[in-house]
């Protein structure tokens, strides 16, 4: 019998705020243990939380990007549980009225993954287990998080993979989070169940906690699918439980079962006021929302005639697409600009972080000047390439590297003269070509290029040579 997978995701994302959720301590990753703490994030007696407005704004931004509705009135609640990494013994979160709700994300297949809610909350500290002791680092304690909860709309690990990657891309793109799973700024809990293909009733689900890479998530999902399917085939039942992924052998193992599920005793946080989001505030935040990547992609293809692949390259990183947008405004040949950005400029960077940052010395205006010369035929692509390389190194204008003669361009008459000269001086190549060796033409083109010091356009030179040779 065939079994279908059903999965839902809860994703925790650390927000890129300067300070923590309820105090002014810094949020940077790592640092000397317990060096970024104060009475508030340490939960010292008598301290009180004060909500970080930037965190609320970023959460709303995430909500808008994920097509959510925003609650104009939501509440903060206490989630009570005792654990040494949680110094107040409760986490301030949102329970019944989250900030954002009813959103969705569309996968490339067109399938819609519904997002039931996004709420804000604070992170806990970190326990470091040594041989005979456990140490606690509260630097992360109180770092703002959003939790993005989907409906159980996934039916394969591929869909989950695509969703997580899209989410990562989108949240980075709008500047809400750096979404680095390895550093823990993005963590996923996966709920998964299987059921026979002929059944409508969802099976008993298990939850795999704290997945820290997409690859592991896929492995864990596939392992769970197999494990649950095998159990069902043997006629056994699935236990509803919380699991952890065991990295060493790619399996899952139980953390706790439903019987000792925690009762969080939620109630309204009395130390914070209800969260009012006014019309004007929401409007202002909406204006901060950049053009969404999917819309941008469509625009690049339609407006500039870029290939879908090229457009995808450009929208992958927000700064790159913004750079391109600037150049596109200054030139009528955005397509040529896109080639230069994707090809030459992009290859300057090797790491994701560098690509994300896209720190280049050339300004959009400088690039547009080069594009203008290139598309008007005043310089050819190889000269443009070497010039751009120099510009990228120095940050200087295109005119600093091209002589007056370079810029004069190359007239048709000059080209025809050079082509005639090439034919005249390379009889063997001409003979080969006439004998049917098409490749022999390239030797002639090479001659023209050399003679013109690279100013000639290889394509036009080839056309011209062909014409001269066939006419004769």
């Amino acid at each position, binding site marked *: 019998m065939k079994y279908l997978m059903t999965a839902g995701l809860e994703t925790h994302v650390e927000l890129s705020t300067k300070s923590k959720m309820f105090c002014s301590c810094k949020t940077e990753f790592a640092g000397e243990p317990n060096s970024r703490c104060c009475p508030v994030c340490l939960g010292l007696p*008598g301290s*009180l939380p004060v909500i970080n407005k930037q965190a609320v704004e970023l959460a709303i931004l995430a909500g808008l990007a994920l097509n959510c509705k925003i609650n104009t009135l939501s509440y903060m609640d*206490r989630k009570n549980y005792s654990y040494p990494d949680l110094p107040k013994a409760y986490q301030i979160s949102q329970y019944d009225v989250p900030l954002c709700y009813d959103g969705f994300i569309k996968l490339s297949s067109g399938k819609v993954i519904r997002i039931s809610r996004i709420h804000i909350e604070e992170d806990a500290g970190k326990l470091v287990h040594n041989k005979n002791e456990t140490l606690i680092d509260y630097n992360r304690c109180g770092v703002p998080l959003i939790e993005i909860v989907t409906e159980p709309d996934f039916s394969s690990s591929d869909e989950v993979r695509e969703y997580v990657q899209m989410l990562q891309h989108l949240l980075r793109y709008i500047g809400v989070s750096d979404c680095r799973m390895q550093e823990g700024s993005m963590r996923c809990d996966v709920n998964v169940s299987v059921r026979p293909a002929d059944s409508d009733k969802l099976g008993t689900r298990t939850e795999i906690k704290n997945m820290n890479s997409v690859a592991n998530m896929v492995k864990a999902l596939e392992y769970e699918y197999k494990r649950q399917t095998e159990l069902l085939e043997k006629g056994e039942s699935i236990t509803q439980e919380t699991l952890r992924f065991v990295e060493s052998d790619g399996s899952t193992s139980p953390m706790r079962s439903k019987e000792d599920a925690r009762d969080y005793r939620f109630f309204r946080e009395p130390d914070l006021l209800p969260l009012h989001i006014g019309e004007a505030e929401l409007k202002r935040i909406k204006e901060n929302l950049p053009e969404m990547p999917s819309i941008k992609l469509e625009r690049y293809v339609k407006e500039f005639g870029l290939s879908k692949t090229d457009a995808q390259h450009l929208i992958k990183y927000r700064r790159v697409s913004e750079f391109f947008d600037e150049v596109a405004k200054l030139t009528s040949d955005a397509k040529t600009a896109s080639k230069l950005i994707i090809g030459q400029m992009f290859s300057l960077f090797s790491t994701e972080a560098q690509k994300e940052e896209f720190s280049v010395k050339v300004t959009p205006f400088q690039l547009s000047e080069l594009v203008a010369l290139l598309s008007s035929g005043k310089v050819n692509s190889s000269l443009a390439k070497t010039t751009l390389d120099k510009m990228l190194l120095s940050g200087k204008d295109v005119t600093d590297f091209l002589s007056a003669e370079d810029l004069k361009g190359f007239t048709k008459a000059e080209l025809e003269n050079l082509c005639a000269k090439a034919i005249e001086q390379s009889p063997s190549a001409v003979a080969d070509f006439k004998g049917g060796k098409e490749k022999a033409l390239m030797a002639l083109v090479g001659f023209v290029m050399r003679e013109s010091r690279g100013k000639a356009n290889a394509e036009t030179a080839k056309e011209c040579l062909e014409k001269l040779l066939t006419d004769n």
Partner: protein
Amino acid sequence: MGKIERIHSSLLSREVSCRELTEEYLSAIERDNSTLSAFVTVTEDCALETADKVDKKLSKGESIGMLSGVPMSIKDNISTKGIRTTCCSKMLWNYTPVYDATAYSRLKLQDAVLLGKNNMDEFAMGNTGENSCIAPSKNPFDMSRVTGGSSSGSACAVSSNLSVYSLGSDTGGSVRQPAAFCGLVGLKPTFGAVSRYGLIAYASSLEQIGPMATSVEDVSLVFDAISGKDVLDSTCNREYEESTFSHLNDSIKGKRVGIIREFSQGEHISSEVKEAVNKVVCTYEAMGANVVELTMPELLQAVPVYYIIACAEASSNLARYDGIRYGYRAQGDFQSVHELICRSRSEAFGKEVKRRILMGTNVLSGDKCSYYYDKAKLLKDNICRQFARAFEKCDVIITPTTPTPAFECNRKAESVELLCEDACAIPANLASLPAVNLPCGVSKTGLPIGVQIIGNKFCEALVLNMAYKYQQEAQLEFCTKWGVSQ
């Protein structure tokens, strides 16, 4: 004129130096505290240091504020940087805060002279002072009777003149009831009027820091100093435009005084208290106020509603005391962190605190939450609405503060009667309203009787104005044999 103004002018006239004055209080504390247990910690060095600072300013001819150099004390659940803050619990016996509570830092800014930290019911849970982990404070009018609580040491210190005024905290009458038992003026401000930053939380949504003193003027001056917006407390976001002090002597002619039938005719209120309160109402009438009779049967639910909400919040607020980072830790070896936490909490919390944590955990757990906590919240909202309606008909409401004057020590703590002790005080906490206790008479046994004036939200100025007018009219004086001679 209140004590603060008198001290202020004698400091200005150099009749007495701040150090002399402070030493006088310190030696009175040294002499009487072992009997009265008003203080859990005496901060002699801190007091003298501030006193010298004030004397220096005076000798240089610098101007000083009204509260400068005035010896005062603070309930031991209000955080004081570098000064042990115990909540009179074994749990926090060695806990020293690294920061000052906002209310205290505002007084500190004015060079208030801190004599020490006052005794209290453990974590502010109780209304007798007997739940302290040290000896309970004594009622200076009758040593066999309770001071009331939970601000027991504050009431004891001020009424026996071991301190000019004290900051208490009021979650369900904890400032007003001991003020009533000890013949003091005690104000519970509107929720959000005074910053709670640094007040060690018991029931966050109900509690406020409030001043206790021997006169309305003193309470008003201290309230003006500690109230107002604080960026560290989101629920305290209101700036008062005018001081309450400047309105103390406003005319009260035509003010509408509400009396609640459930209290004025309530069977649980003793007849001598009813009579005393009635006399207050008559006095106001004679001064040109109009009396409005109200009926608010919802207030009879106030006590259970209070205990459910307060305990629920307490169970969460006190969960952080786990013996890991600070506070009491049980001795010995542990199999797990869980065991360490359990044993530390079992050994360090007193009986009443444990009872309330258990009750609060219970009313929030699973299905019970909708039976208890959710219902209590609905009833609380209803009480708020009833008060809002009442304040359309009147400007202030007058009730007894307590059903009886101070009662004998060692009453059974389990008795529901003891819980109902706070029936008159609790509604103002549930509805976030300002309320003041004002001494209004003496019982046959010579004990003070208190009247409560409740105002609309943020109407402290009117509440204190009404109180001041009565105080001037009634001219009640309470003296004890203790403390600095007056």
